[in-house]
């Protein structure tokens, strides 16, 4: 996926985090704090995956 298309992951992860958290709790502050945590978790996981795959495909 070229760099330009990769940016589309951001709004996708934001929406997934928000909607999923909203379906778990009712309290607004709880929804947003949990959504923030889920967003960071997903992005860190994807970031690690990105580094690993880039390293494995170096000079291929």
């Amino acid at each position, binding site marked *: *996926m*070229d760099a330009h298309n990769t940016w589309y992951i951001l709004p996708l992860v934001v*929406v997934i985090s928000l*909607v999923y958290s909203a*379906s778990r*709790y*009712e*309290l*607004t502050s709880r929804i947003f704090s949990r959504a923030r945590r889920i967003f960071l978790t997903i992005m860190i996981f994807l970031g690690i995956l990105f580094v690993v795959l880039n390293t494995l495909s170096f000079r291929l």
Partner: protein
Amino acid sequence: MTSPQVDLKNRWLAAVLAFLIPGAGHLYQGRLVKAAIYSVGIIGLFVGGMVLGEWKVVYWRWEPGGHRSFGYFSQVLVGLPALPARWQAGRYLEQGRAIDETLDAPFSGRLRYDPDPDQLTIHPVDPDTRPTSKIHEITGTIHWQREAAAVTGTLEGTLDNGQAVSLTLIREPMATRRVFVHDEITPSILRRDKETSVRLFSSTARYVRCDVQNGDREGIVEGTVPRDFWNWFQVPLEEEALQELHGRLGRRFELAQVFTWIAGLLNLLAIWDALEGPAYGYGDEEDDSEQAAAD
């Protein structure tokens, strides 16, 4: 288990509303923040996918042994925004290939008059030196209607040299189907010399070609007219259309599909929330348990 702090009202009605329009069920229940999150998030994701895929990622097509739009089972969970595809699939199959009984639409294309017959008698009939008339760009309005067995009509427009013309349709025009997703609209008859043969496709335009007459001169026009929104929106994609879109948009088309699939799946969570309330509870339960431990 439903949190007692959340008033679900008529939860089945709320669930149906949540299915039809993401966030509507929660709006009915008075859960405004959630209604905003679900509607903006889910509808935004769905529409974003549609825009990325040039409004052609949502369609229903089910051919035994052929192409099947499995993704639609997820897209349809978004509700009303995806439901037209089912209805459009039926319209697509019903539409025949006969031309419209009437047409009144803006036209954009090319015009070429037949060579002057006098010139043909003067010059030798040699393909290399045979005179050909100039191709003009023309924009205007085309109108035709069927009267008994014949089609009559006119094309009123302006040529690229600024000349206004009023052309009469003299034979049965040719037009692509009214309900269609994908048509090739590349000029085939009136292609200019040295013009690269690029195949142009469009769902929002229809290809039209007809013989015309202007006074004692006959000619041919070839171009496009706009297609009505409901004759291309969420209509099944043909194989050529899929291949052309994948070839041109590449990964963006797949990303667009993923956006719409995930929007549908997320609406499942919203529907369940409208029906049963928040899955884990109100959100203040841990604070209560910490207070109890302190006591």
